[in-house]
């Protein structure tokens, strides 16, 4: 339906849209540095380190086992998967699910996570809502249903206004999620300002549920290794190699590189 285009005051762009972007971005950067300061050292036990390396070795055996002779591959597979004394069969780690009550460091971690991420978002969201209220900030490029109106048009009491026109609060939230890629560009991956990742972690259950996973991980590796077969990559290597002449270009040049300098 043809709707009358609303023409917004360009002052809105200058004094609302851009400041909100800047504020969100700066708050994100500050959050990142604060989280670095508040980070507590993660102490790993010897067993955890050892287990993770063993899992990696098993994975490499599955992936690159084809480069070693068949006998060696079978020997290692036997070591891991043997019915009587295979490593994956026999090793049972003590499972201690890290609930927030029993593990005090986990509790403080969660609190710190909440303080640095959720609290600023709420505070600043509220402040922006209060400061920049009563007018329409921007228009989202796709049509929305009327149900979105109360959520996106806080403070604007026009029944006939298209739901695509949103208030500054929703522009703020849009920024919070949209600037995530900017953060990875500027702060590098795995940065503390990456809110959605943190929220995903919280949603997917207790963080660092590693001990329980170890037994499951062992079982998974056992199954995967059982299924792996040995396809020796060197079966026809001589034919492949000798099908053409060796490429000796560049091997012998008049000026040999002089040592380190």
């Amino acid at each position, binding site marked *: 339906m043809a709707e009358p285009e609303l023409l917004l005051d360009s002052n809105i762009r200058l004094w609302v849209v851009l400041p909100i972007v800047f504020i969100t971005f700066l708050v994100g950067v500050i959050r990142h540095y604060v989280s670095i300061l508040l980070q507590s050292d993660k102490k790993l*036990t010897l067993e955890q380190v050892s287990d993770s390396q063993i899992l990696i070795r098993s994975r490499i055996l599955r992936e*690159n086992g084809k480069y070693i002779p068949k006998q060696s591959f079978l020997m290692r597979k036997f070591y891991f998967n043997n019915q009587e004394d295979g490593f994956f069969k026999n090793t049972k780690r003590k499972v201690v699910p890290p609930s927030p009550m029993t593990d005090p460091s986990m509790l403080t971690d969660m609190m710190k996570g909440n303080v640095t991420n959720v609290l600023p978002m709420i505070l600043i969201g509220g402040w922006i809502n209060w400061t920049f209220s009563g007018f329409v900030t921007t228009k989202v490029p796709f049509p929305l249903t009327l149900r979105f109106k109360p959520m996106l048009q806080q403070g604007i009491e026009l029944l006939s206004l298209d739901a695509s026109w949103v208030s500054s609060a929703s522009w703020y939230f849009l920024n919070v999620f949209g600037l995530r890629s900017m953060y990875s560009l500027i702060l590098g991956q795995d940065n503390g300002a990456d809110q959605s990742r943190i929220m995903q972690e919280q949603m997917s259950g207790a963080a660092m549920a590693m001990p329980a996973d170890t037994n499951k991980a062992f079982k998974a590796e056992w199954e995967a290794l059982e299924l792996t077969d040995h396809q020796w990559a060197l079966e026809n290597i001589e034919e492949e190699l000798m099908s053409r002449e060796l490429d000796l270009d560049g*091997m012998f040049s008049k000026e040999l590189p002089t040592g380190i300098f």
Partner: protein
Amino acid sequence: MGHVKEINVLIIVFTEMRDKLRKWREDNHRNSEQIVDVGEELINEHASKLGDDIWIIYEQVMIAALDCSRDDLAWTCLQELKKQFPGSQRVKRLAGMRLEALEKYEDASKQYDSILQDDPTNTAARKRKISILKAQGKSAEAIRELNEYLEQFVGDQEAWHELSELYINEHDYGKAAFCLEELMMTNPHNHLYCEQYAEVKYTQGGLENLELSRKYFAQALKLNNGNMRALFGLYMSASHIAASPKVNATVKKANVKYAAWATNQINRAYQLAGRGTKENKCSVKAVEEMLESMQITMS
């Protein structure tokens, strides 16, 4: 030649010196004399310009100084690091290394034990303890300790390589081959591991091992066409198999073909190497004669 290079070092600008040190650090070069020269100059003259880089340079120069028996320099570096990072385990390890260099193995061992008490997962301290055993010539104990270490830290490639070297020195080629297999699995594109494995198999001898060694020499060549050692190895293993009385005719024929191909490539390489030089004809002829003399009579 060495002296000319040293003078060139001193003339080079500060940034070049710092960049060279960084390159050596990243590539893990062990050119300790050069590091000591460049590093000492950098520390004494340009300390202020280095900023926070200076700490890692102190570490690098200290280790190089220990290599060159420059205990004075090593002590200075250690003191600076201790002042800046008191209670750091990394600095404690450096202190232990200095004790090792002074052959005070007991004290060094105690130092590493104290690190391990605080942090049982510290790999550097464990590896230094094994190095102490190696330095004292107790290779059997070193092998045992290294095996225990590897049981815990299966992924430490440096350690696997070290263990393979220790086994080769003890002539336990079967176990050395096992270690090299681990390395080949984790680094399938590294032609040097393939070549080393092939050499160990060749040394073990026996028809099966010779076949394996020929295959792995071929693999090394496939990964790096310029690996002359692998090329010679391929020739040798193929010739040996062909000359063995136990093989049947088809295998013999195949191996003779491989050996002939290898000979061609060797000749080509030597031709290319000596392009345009007077000695070329002599060296090519020498190679041909050598190959003929190595020809084990095919009966």
